[in-house]
């Protein structure tokens, strides 16, 4: 490069602050818009239902097709579930998201609902896949 030319006068600049701005902006966006996967314990096939609104900040319970209950990702017996809920009495205003297999007998759900009612956890969400074709009336 010739000395004194236009290109030689240009100074290289680093866009560190701009990069930081952009990265923080994207970071805030991702933090606000994404959710973390709840502890499930077992894979289940969800039933289809007319859903409205997304569940947030729930206690998670998964019931497999064979009736195994996972509370916050850990396998528990019915008595264990009773004790677990009793220990978390302070969180009874949080909804309990029940993720149960669609082919599960209702008898299992009934028992779980009975325990929830006993322990005063009265807000329940039956997790389901949204039914695409039908929209609920507003």
């Amino acid at each position, binding site marked *: 490069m010739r000395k004194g030319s236009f290109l030689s006068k240009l100074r290289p600049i680093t866009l560190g602050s701009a990069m930081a701005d952009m*990265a923080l902006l994207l970071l805030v966006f991702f933090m606000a818009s994404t959710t973390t996967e709840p502890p499930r314990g077992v894979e289940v096939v969800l039933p289809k239902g007319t859903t409205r609104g997304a569940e947030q900040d729930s206690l998670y319970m998964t019931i497999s097709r064979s009736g195994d209950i996972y509370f916050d990702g850990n396998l528990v017996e019915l008595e264990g579930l009773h004790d677990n809920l009793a220990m978390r009495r302070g969180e009874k205003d949080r909804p309990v998201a029940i993720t149960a297999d669609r082919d599960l007998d209702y*008898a299992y759900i009934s028992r779980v609902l009975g325990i929830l009612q006993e322990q005063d956890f009265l807000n329940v969400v039956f997790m389901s896949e949204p039914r695409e074709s039908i929209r609920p009336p507003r």
Partner: protein
Amino acid sequence: MENDNLIVKILQRRGRLKNRPEERSFDSVSIADMAFLLLIFFIVTGSFVLRQGIFFSLPSKTSGSVSLDERQITEVFPVENGFLHNGILLNREGFGRMLRERGKKAADSVLMIHMGGKIRYERLVDTLSVARESGVRRVSLKNADKGGAL
């Protein structure tokens, strides 16, 4: 840094000798690095899939009973191939239509779902879905084998 020299102070006051502004900067590259690292972490661990469900409130143990007019109550027995209402097997559309008609006749109607222990959970979710689609707000869940309502 302050200059204690009196002449310098006078000149500064007169504006003839101006303090050179100090160049202040901080290294933002490390912040960008950290932000990108956290960003990648959130992209990898996060999920955009909204978990949806049907909200249901259980009655409290201490809640009292309510008396309802018979016309307000609609009883249904979900079965594998439809909805049994007054001994008549209805399909999804028929059941929804019936609920809407009953809702027009009696305001604040209650749907009482009698669930058998051997009936699949999917049928409960479907029944609650039809109730929601038909505008039924009050639902009572009853174990058909045991009795007792939720």
